[in-house]
């Protein structure tokens, strides 16, 4: 384990814990931005530059702004002393159990010891060529899905007219 990896991984996991446990939801959203940025750093370490920058554009740029908007639009009018979680120990024990299972599987598997091959040559050009040839059908389906999701989100969130 190298030092840069340890720093980025610690930052990512720490801010993820903060994002899920803080009481103020705006603080949660800001910690989430840090988690997404840390993940982008991990992608860059893994020689996936394009995915790393996509992560920054889509998650740090768009999704987190969307979440902040939603938090501000649904500012809760409920009393502050109400607990923000419900039966936390059941959920946390389920999550810890899941983590122990996955960690044991990872540590027991011989694949986990594998070291990286020399860094592959991945340019944005080859990625784009692949998207336009081998992956053109998924790309078009994705375009359709994004259009449908955008229209759907607008229609769902549109305020209904009075008297309808």
């Amino acid at each position, binding site marked *: 384990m190298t030092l840069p990896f340890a720093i980025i991984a610690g930052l990512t996991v720490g801010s993820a814990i903060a994002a899920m446990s803080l009481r103020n939801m705006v603080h949660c959203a800001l910690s989430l931005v840090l988690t997404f940025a840390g993940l982008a750093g991990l992608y860059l370490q893994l020689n996936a530059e394009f995915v790393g920058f996509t992560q920054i554009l889509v998650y740090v740029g768009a999704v987190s702004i*969307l979440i902040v908007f939603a938090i501000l639009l649904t500012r809760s009018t409920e009393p502050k002393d109400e607990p923000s979680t419900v039966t936390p120990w059941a959920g946390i024990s389920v999550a810890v159990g899941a983590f122990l299972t996955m960690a044991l599987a990872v540590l027991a598997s011989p694949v986990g*010891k594998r070291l990286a091959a020399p860094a592959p040559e991945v340019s944005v050009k080859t990625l784009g060529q692949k998207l336009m040839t081998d992956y053109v059908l998924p790309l078009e389906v994705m375009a359709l899905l994004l259009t449908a999701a955008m229209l759907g989100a607008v229609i769902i969130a549109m305020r209904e007219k009075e008297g309808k």
Partner: protein
Amino acid sequence: MSPLWCYLTVSALLFCIGLAGALTRRNAIMVLIGIELMLNAANLNFIAFWRFSEHPETQTGLMFALFSIAIAAAEAAVGLALIITIYRHFRTANVDKVEDMKG
């Protein structure tokens, strides 16, 4: 460079943090944030397995991660629109208090 198990452990940690949040928080937006964390953990797995595979030059894992990011963006947009509509209707984003399906 760190071996594969380091990345897989970080990914498992992120997944379980997201799972714990989605199971325990009462606000619908926090549940959605937990789901986003779990999706991101899966993406990290895709990239890590791609980088440590025998043939990283095929770029399959990269493509999978890119499509997964696009789907997650669509999911976040629709999910947050639903939460805003629910908030307008019930005046709360608390998932415990949204009990009836009929308006």
